[in-house]
């Protein structure tokens, strides 16, 4: 970004934001400093403003709603709430190695350990104890894909007294051709969406503006379409974008879905991919290996993916979050808008692949490997992620048996650099790529 823009955003980070926003401020300043070296693109602008929006909401007394990574916040935006995706903390603090002190505090408080409960949620428990994380006004979660979310939000509620609403997410599919199809699932999800709206209206003493809701859902559709097109472009050989690009789309959808900012950001990255294909530019020069990464990135190590790219001329096409499977849906009526929210919940990244039977995840891996002409799968499994870790082996077997593609699975904590170090991770990947793949 240019000096003037940098100074403008830097200045906005000056002064006290209040103790409860001190971690938020640390992340903001870290982000601005990192972004200084980057082009001031719609992603940078979107995230810089996201930090500031929460600060302003605090100042103006606007309700902040906290929710996990598994939901498009469009409905909250339509109701003028300020969305705060809880994992912004654990993902944002990971590269700064700042989850660790709060994980230690959470351990001392007696809420779980790393192999049992996910550190995507746990650090904020310690941060609450220290008073350095903002307590929201409302909370919402869906208890999927994992028990860690279910339990952590119950614990947050006990610690903060903030009311929450939760929406059940069933095991089944809404696609009639799927063997796990259930004819009532959409009606059920729509009913729960209406229950959520009723709850939000009651808690915030306002009615949902249906026209605004429909406009918001149109923006959701535009962004979903951009992501869909972007992910199609990644099928190109060589892949037109470097390894982290797909994850950026996920962050836009999980934090800003329903805003013009998300539309701009997802369009920007889609256009870049299309332009790269047109110009013959590859994300990784002389691409030799195409890697599927059907789990999350290792957030504490921002150098890992560039290292893989440089060392092995290998590109990680998409992580499980960037593999964003939510399609645009008909939003021509309000009823259809509810349906679109419902389908968004069912299909969201990781939820769509992990909320149901193992076949959901296995099919995702098989399709991913086939569609993207993958040479190898790497699955860095978080120790506490029981719902995914316990099906990676059968998924890897299916991929090997049906498609002849090898898989590396290893345990790690993406949020805590101490559990499995960068050196160990690199050694495992190096051994796998050199001895099995290349």
């Amino acid at each position, binding site marked *: 970004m240019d000096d003037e823009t940098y100074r403008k955003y830097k200045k906005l980070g000056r002064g006290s934001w209040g103790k409860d926003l001190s971690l938020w401020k640390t992340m903001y300043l870290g982000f601005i400093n990192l972004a200084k070296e980057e082009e001031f693109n719609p992603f940078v602008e979107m995230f810089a403003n996201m930090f500031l929006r929460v600060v302003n909401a605090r100042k103006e007394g606007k309700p902040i709603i906290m929710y996990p990574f598994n939901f498009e916040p469009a409905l909250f935006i339509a109701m003028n709430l300020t969305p705060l995706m809880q994992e912004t903390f654990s993902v944002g603090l990971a590269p700064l190695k700042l989850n660790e002190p709060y994980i230690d505090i959470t351990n001392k*408080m*007696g*809420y*779980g*350990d790393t*192999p*049992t*409960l996910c550190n995507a949620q746990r650090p904020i428990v310690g941060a609450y104890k220290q008073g350095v994380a903002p307590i929201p006004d409302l909370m919402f*979660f869906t*208890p*999927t894909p*994992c*028990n*860690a979310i*279910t*339990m*952590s*939000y*119950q*614990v947050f*509620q*006990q610690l903060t007294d903030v009311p*929450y609403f*939760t*929406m*059940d*997410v*069933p*095991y*089944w599919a809404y696609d009639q051709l799927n063997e796990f199809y*259930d004819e*009532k699932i959409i009606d*059920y999800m729509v*009913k*729960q969406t209406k*229950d959520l709206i009723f709850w939000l209206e009651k808690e915030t003493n306002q009615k949902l503006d249906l026209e605004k809701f429909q406009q918001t859902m149109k923006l959701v559709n535009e962004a979903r379409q951009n992501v869909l097109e972007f992910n199609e472009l990644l099928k190109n050989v060589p892949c037109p974008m470097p390894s982290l690009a797909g994850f950026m789309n996920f962050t836009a959808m999980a934090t800003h879905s329903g805003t013009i900012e998300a539309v701009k950001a997802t369009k920007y990255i889609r256009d870049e991919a299309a332009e790269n294909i047109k110009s013959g530019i590859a994300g990784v020069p002389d691409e030799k290996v195409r890697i599927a990464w059907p789990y999350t990135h290792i957030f504490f190590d921002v150098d890992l993916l560039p290292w893989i790219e440089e060392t092995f001329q290998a590109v990680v096409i998409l992580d499980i979050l960037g593999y964003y499977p939510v399609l645009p849906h008909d939003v021509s009526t309000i009823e259809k808008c509810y349906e679109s929210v419902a389908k968004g919940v069912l299909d969201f990244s990781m939820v769509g692949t992990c909320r149901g*039977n*193992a076949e959901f995840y296995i099919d995702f891996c098989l399709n991913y490997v086939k569609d993207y002409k993958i040479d190898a799968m790497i699955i860095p*499994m978080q*120790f*506490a992620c*029981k*719902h995914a*870790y*316990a*099906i990676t*082996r*059968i998924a890897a077997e299916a991929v090997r048996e049906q498609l002849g593609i090898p898989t590396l699975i290893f*345990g790690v904590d993406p949020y805590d650099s101490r559990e499995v170090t960068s050196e160990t991770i690199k050694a495992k990947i190096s051994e796998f790529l050199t001895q099995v793949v290349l």
Partner: protein
Amino acid sequence: MTILEKFYQSIPLENPWIESWKKEGKKVLGTFCSYIPDEIIYAADILPIRIRAKGCAETPMGDAYLTQTACSFTRCCLEMANRKQYNFLDGMISCNSCDQIRRLFDNIRFKAPPPFHHFLSVPGNVNETTIDWFKHELTKFKETLEENFSVDISDNKLRDAIKIYNKSRTLLKELYMLRKNTAPPISGTDMMNILLTNVSIPKEQFNELLSQQLQEIDGKEGISDYKARIMLAGSMLDDPDYVKIIEELGGLVVTDAYCLGPRYFWDNVDETKNPMDALANYYMSRVSCPRMAGRQSNRVEHIVDLIKEFNVDGVILQRMKFCALWWGEIFIIRKKLKELNIPFLDLEREYVMSGVGAMKTRVQGFMEVLEAR
């Protein structure tokens, strides 16, 4: 043989009652969770029993497929399935009790598939909408049983099954309430055996045994040589030897909060309603498991009520290693116990008894604390 000794015969996975049942040419289905309504299975003249992993010694397959950070109960079950220890079952029923159970079921389906299996998507929260969904799940379950086993599960059969199960619940509660006495007529170890029998043999026979047991203890002197009255709460527990260790050290377990305990029988299914409505309402609205979001205050209140009613001196919170739900739940329970100044001991354990020496030391220390109060 005393009645209590008869209850002890149900401890092996394949017990004499199951053998007799099968000799009649009737089917047996294994279930993984207390949210699966046994009444529907029983109404099909099929015996539902709770799947356990008694006898599991090592878990190489569980470690490899579920990973070593899965709880040892699920790793043991996968091992037992792979070693064909569940082959006496005609099928398995599971639900999304927790992430580990649902993935155990997936791995069993892939690696050691039972002749029949069914999965229920049990909602993770309770309100009118979710209860209605659960009824839909129960209807699908009933229809699947009817189709696969060529049976008709009529409303009348369901009503009969509900009555029989309610009788069990009533009898269990009657026995359970006697533990409020200063000298309870039954130990925690024996109670656990009875609770295990409750989920391991046909209900009519269980009811008969339990009625006899109640008659046998009527008017008899109870247990008074204990140091402290204990509540045992936490993860899935089906090992009477675990309770026995606590009781040998002077703690008398007088009440409990785990899935085979009061949650199973504290309230009855409404016999006046349409049976599927009644079952859906009952299973969703009773005292819940930590998997049910939004009900934690209700669960903690239930525990506090039991502590008061059963005059508990101290609580042992046992948690199976890697059990996410119970770790969170215990975090919440501990906060309440601290507020109420109720002593507690937090114990981590594996499914297969191990570290007995360390456990004894900690329980012994806890007993000393309780005695000193």
